[in-house]
């Protein structure tokens, strides 16, 4: 690319190149603009109106929908629930997946079977997993009878009905669904680490913890950072599992931003307000993504970009 620019242009070469480039870009660009950029702009536009989705777009109310969103107790619960899932995912789900990946990276009989078993939940659709769990978690159903059988009947809770614990229940179901995905990602990362480096460390006298702490973990960094990133974005967009198991209830206890948006738009026919919530959710996602790229992923991305420019 740079060599092309350095060469004195003949007056025809550059435009022709540009035409070729834009011709090849056009289809992808048009689709991206039509299905990604335009809807975002539209949502931002709708969010400035009070609109039920059917009538003409006439009732302009400025930023009132955004003011309403931050005064809405249900939406504030939604934001804090999303943040809670992010924190719990990073604190529990990913370390758990990492531990399993390290275990399954060792050689032992039946390793492939275990990998398959742990990855299986991820293959299930969210709706099916949600329905199965809500059936199992019903009072006097599988989970409760199971606990009673092993003598832990005292631990039984109204898993999906008690507003104090329902969010933890939901987090457990999400983790069950997604730990296998992160485990596979990390496992792939682990397998990319050359054995010689670990061996060299061991020969130099490092113990198992030392090897993991100072060799494996740093080399697993890029994979781990991508895993964390996907987990955060997934937590922000949380919808399916919650919708199927609790519908955001009881009493908004498991509300998430995506659920608040869906309910405003499709249940209450407040398309303007729903669009405002969608924009807020989008900005949250964008902010997290940009900040993460800027401060965390830069090390990984930089290499790729430099190579491209060079």
């Amino acid at each position, binding site marked *: 690319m740079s060599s092309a620019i350095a060469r004195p242009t003949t007056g025809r070469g550059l435009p022709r190149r540009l035409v070729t480039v834009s011709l090849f870009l056009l289809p992808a660009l048009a689709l991206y603009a039509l299905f990604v950029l335009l809807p975002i702009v539209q949502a931002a536009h709708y969010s400035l109106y009070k609109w*039920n*989705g*059917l*009538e003409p777009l006439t009732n302009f109310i400025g930023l009132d929908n955004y003011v309403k969103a931050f005064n809405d107790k249900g939406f504030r619960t939604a934001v804090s629930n999303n943040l809670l899932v992010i924190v719990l995912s990073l604190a529990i789900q990913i370390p758990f997946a990492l531990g399993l990946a390290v275990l399954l990276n060792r050689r032992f009989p039946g390793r492939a079977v275990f990998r398959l078993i742990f990855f299986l939940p991820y293959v299930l659709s969210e709706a099916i997993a949600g329905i199965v769990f*809500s059936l199992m978690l*019903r*009072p*006097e159903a599988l989970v409760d009878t199971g606990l009673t059988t092993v003598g832990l009947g005292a631990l039984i809770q*109204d*898993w*999906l*009905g*008690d*507003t104090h614990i*329902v969010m933890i229940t939901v987090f457990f179901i999400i983790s069950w669904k997604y730990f296998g995905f992160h485990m596979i990602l990390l496992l792939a990362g682990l397998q990319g680490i050359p054995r010689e480096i670990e061996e060299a460390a061991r020969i130099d006298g490092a113990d198992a913890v030392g090897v993991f702490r100072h060799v494996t973990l740093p080399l697993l960094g890029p994979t781990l950072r991508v895993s964390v990133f996907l987990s955060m974005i997934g937590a922000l967009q949380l919808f399916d599992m919650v919708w199927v198991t*609790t*519908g955001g*209830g*009881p*009493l908004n206890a498991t509300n998430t931003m995506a659920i608040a948006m869906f*309910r405003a*738009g*499709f*249940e*209450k*026919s*407040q*398309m303007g307000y729903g669009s405002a919530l969608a924009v807020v959710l989008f900005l949250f996602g964008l902010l997290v993504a940009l900040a993460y790229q800027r401060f965390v992923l830069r090390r990984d991305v930089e290499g790729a970009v430099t190579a491209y420019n060079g």
Partner: protein
Amino acid sequence: MSRRLRSFGALGALAILVAACSGSGTATQAPATQAPATQAAATTAPATPAPASEAPSAAPVAVEWWHITTGEPGKTIFQGFADAYMAAHPNVKINLTVLENEAFKTKLATTMQSGQAPDLFQSWGGGIMAAQADAGMLKDITADVASWKDTVNPGAMSIYAYNGKQYGVPWDMGMIGVWYNKALFAKAGITAPPATWDEFLADVTKLKNSGTYPLAIAGKDKWPSMHIWTYLLLRGGGSKALTDMIQSGNWNTDACKAAGNEVLKLVALNPFQAGYKSADYNAEAASVGNGKAAMEVMGQWAPSVQNDQSTSKKGLGADLGWFPFPAITGGAGAATDGVGGGNGIAVGKNASPEALDFLKFISSPENANKINAANMGLSPVAGTAASVTDPNLQAVLAGRDKATFMQLYLDQATSPAMGSAINDATVALFLGASTPEEACQAITTAAAAQ
């Protein structure tokens, strides 16, 4: 010079080309619209020996019909209506789209946002239908149904009218009441269904002491308990007070708070089934259908859903009974006032005369009797009561026909935003998370934001 000339020439050629294109465009358009007609004449000719002069009426017409009767036998019966009509009118093609309730609502909303509406689609009348009519998505069928509208129960018909115009036709209209398990009542030593709210509360205690869950509700779906609250409001405050609250948007009234206090009396008895906070309506129906809970306050569809959701798929059978919601002693409302509603078919803005003719066909006594006989609903078509054979549904029908006042389900009579606020506010009462004052204030606030 030559260069400039050439570009002028090119421009001229371009202009001719554009003209030619647009010319040919309009030229081809005319035959294109005629093409289907000729094709139709050709295809219908062998089937019906009718002469070609009848071509206009025999032109093929497609009718889009969306309904939500996903269960049997209703699904087959609706398909049967379409098949019978298509057999009699070979030029009409009725395309059925059968959707699950929630999926239907979402799909209809997105379709209407794109400016389209199916010809015929499921409707509950009330506030949502009014919003659709305001948006110009519905067809005013007042004149079209004038010749046969008197064959349908006027109260049921009025649910599908808005600002004096008819936009749809009901095929099912019933009344909410209390469905109960006779065997569990007998076990608890209750000899007759309660006639007053105080008796009802006493019976709840008796049922609880006999070791069953007295009442099933659905905390996840919210609306089942909302109907209990509406009845308490209607019985205590009366139909006029309720109508005033809906119209004024001021729910900070004594009648509203009194209804909330009656709910709290019920909640204090801890009468609900295990897991009621997170139960959806299917789970509620299952606990009644499996004989675990003794009562539910529900509409005419309750028996079929109980059967469907019960482990045996047969429900309670002869043990199932129905009684009207009890009266409140000293309350302003009549014991014969009801909360009701049902299912109907709304007519989309571009519906053809064939679609309306099919609607009339569905509303014929012959087809209404099929709806009744299959326990799909209670047809509002006059003279079809005899085809209701189930004694419980006969009781519901009797209640409907002698109702002194009929309030459409509150979450459907009002706008979607209001309905949602009413459901949220009332379920909070039943889950013990709100005071009556807070509930009434929440509904008033939602009304003010309209």
